[in-house]
């Protein structure tokens, strides 16, 4: 018998494959500065992998970015994160993980809400963040691949994600 608890997350009506990815504008943070950017500006340059993750500093955020960094997924398409953390925290995360990915800052969690991937945190009253989710969006802003966590904690199926990214990029 396991003595730990993986929590089932409630069913959610999230953005799915074939849907148009909702456009949004938020501060996009890189290792030097942040400036407003929209998803559509990024997709105008090519496919985008949108990675919703738990707040910076949590172990899932650390694990996800370590894994994506080590797989060099940004060689094939633009990979960007979204979390409720501030631009200041994002800069720290980018520095600490030594990663090439830019991160959207969405403290009010509106982007996760638009994608149907919110997660109200037990024991942190009033704090809603994104549940782990990845959306692979093509240059027409159509979702080609979607994965949304159904339990907590949970991690993207990295092999599937990497295969889909490579397929879309080729």
């Amino acid at each position: 018998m396991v003595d730990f608890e993986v929590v089932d997350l409630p069913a959610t009506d999230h953005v799915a494959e074939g849907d148009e990815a909702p456009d949004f504008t938020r501060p996009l943070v890189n290792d030097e500065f942040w400036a407003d950017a929209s998803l559509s500006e990024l997709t105008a340059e090519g496919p985008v992998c949108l990675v919703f993750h738990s707040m910076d500093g949590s172990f899932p955020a650390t694990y996800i970015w370590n894994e994506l960094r080590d797989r060099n997924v940004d060689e094939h398409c633009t990979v960007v994160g979204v979390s409720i953390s501030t631009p200041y925290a994002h800069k720290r995360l980018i520095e600490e993980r030594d990663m090439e990915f830019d991160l959207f800052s969405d403290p009010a969690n509106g982007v996760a809400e638009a994608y149907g991937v919110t997660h109200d945190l037990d024991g942190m009253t009033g704090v809603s963040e994104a549940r782990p989710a990845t959306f692979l969006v093509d240059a027409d802003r159509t979702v080609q691949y979607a994965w949304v966590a159904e339990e907590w904690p949970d991690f993207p199926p990295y092999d599937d994600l990497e295969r889909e990214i490579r397929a879309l990029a080729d």
Partner: protein
Amino acid sequence: MPDEEPPITLYRLQACPYCERVVRTLQDLDLEYTSRFVEPMHSERDVVKRVAGSRPVPAIVDERTGVTMSESANVVDYLESTYGDGLVDATGGAD
């Protein structure tokens, strides 16, 4: 969002009154601009050093005129003398 980035980029620090002075001037002159926020620590501002030659903010890069400038009084003077009396058409694009 417009497809083309505004020609003026402002490097700024959140809550910095000198930066807000430049913002007010940009707004008074109806100039479009992109804000790039940097951090309080000077050592974290390599991007400003790279584009402007030194790390203080506010700093602006005006692609329309090729001017890069920092220090708020200088920037305000520049903006007012360049765009204040319709000397340069601020709506006419970068060409």
